[in-house]
């Protein structure tokens, strides 16, 4: 019942002339917050499936080319520093944990903890990109670049297929990096709204959905790390 008394004050912000007291974030076409939350979640999962298929195409292509040129791919993967890959794996796993704790805090109406966890998640994302920057810089310096830009001269396996490995490396980690940037943008947006006090136990859908997206980005890295950095 505290929900109703809390929302009567907020319904003036709503400004649509509703007499019934409900959350200012309840849309017209939903009967209640619960239904709205479930519907949003279904939409998010559908989007996540398209993301899985987007990355899935790259994974299948990588698998086929690795099966075809195992020696060249094995040779090429030595140019990657598995320690940096492992570090980034840990950073992303921790950020996933802080993200789910942010969702948890929001569901308990703990605004301070929500803000704190969102900030830590953003920091982890930034650390990931900084590590990625140093990795990319090293590759660019050595000429280990995709396709025709591949200028590295020390290939041990003839046939030019080490360049193919780096085409996949840059496309997959690059697309993943763009998703990290996108994730940082939406986490920043959620953080702004959290500071504005929009979220509590009756409404935290954006926190939850951004959390789902962030976990998917983590999930993709869980597969990228062993396949690119550790294949043998």
């Amino acid at each position, binding site marked *: 019942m505290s929900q109703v008394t809390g929302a009567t004050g907020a319904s003036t912000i709503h400004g649509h002339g509703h007499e019934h007291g409900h959350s200012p974030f309840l849309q017209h076409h939903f009967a209640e917050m619960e239904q709205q939350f479930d519907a949003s*979640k279904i939409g998010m999962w559908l989007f996540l499936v398209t993301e899985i298929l987007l990355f899935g195409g790259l994974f299948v292509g990588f698998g086929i080319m690795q099966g075809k040129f195992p020696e060249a791919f094995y040779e090429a993967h030595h140019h990657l520093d598995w320690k940096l890959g492992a570090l980034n794996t840990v950073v992303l*796993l921790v950020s996933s944990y802080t993200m789910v704790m942010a969702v948890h805090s929001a569901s308990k109406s703990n605004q301070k903890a929500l803000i704190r966890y969102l900030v830590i998640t953003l920091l982890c994302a930034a650390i990931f990109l900084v590590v990625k920057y140093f990795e990319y810089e090293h590759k660019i310096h050595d000429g280990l670049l995709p396709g025709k830009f591949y200028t590295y001269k020390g290939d041990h396996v003839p046939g030019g297929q080490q*360049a193919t490995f780096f085409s996949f490396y840059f496309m997959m980690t690059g697309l993943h990096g763009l998703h990290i940037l996108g994730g940082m943008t939406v986490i920043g947006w959620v953080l702004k709204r959290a500071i504005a006090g929009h979220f509590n136990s009756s409404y935290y859908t954006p926190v939850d959905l951004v959390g789902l997206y962030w976990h998917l980005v983590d999930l993709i890295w*869980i597969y990228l790390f062993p396949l690119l950095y550790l294949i*043998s």
Partner: protein
Amino acid sequence: MSDHSTTAHHHPPAKLYAGVLAALLFLTVITVAASRVDFGSSSINVVIALAIATCKASLVILYFMHLRYDKPLNSLILLTGVLFLGVLLAFCLIDIDSRFPSRPSNLKVPIAAGAAAAGAGAAPGTAPAAGAPAAGTPAPAAAPSGGTQPAAAPTPSH
């Protein structure tokens, strides 16, 4: 468990999330350790790495993404996506396995010989439609080049 739910979302306690994170970090160590062990075949290493990654992914999906506590419809959506990814992979593998060894597009040396042979081989096939007398001359020329093609084909794959 103070479950004064104004909303019906079932969230596990915060301690469980810490446990899941510990398990994920532990599995990451296992992934790195397993990659340094020689299991006799490189494909076994890949299978082990993918199996551990799938364990980690399941933990993330079930607990961090709440799918274990969610409406089953969301799980169904995810499984449909994974199923179609499987279809993509399976049909690609069937296609690849049922082909002659193909050449990568950026393989410079043999590709010209291969293209010339293919071009010469295609000419007699289209020639009868244009005119039968003209097709008489290129046909014998195409035959020897077609004969050398199988001998040249295995070289790039090694």
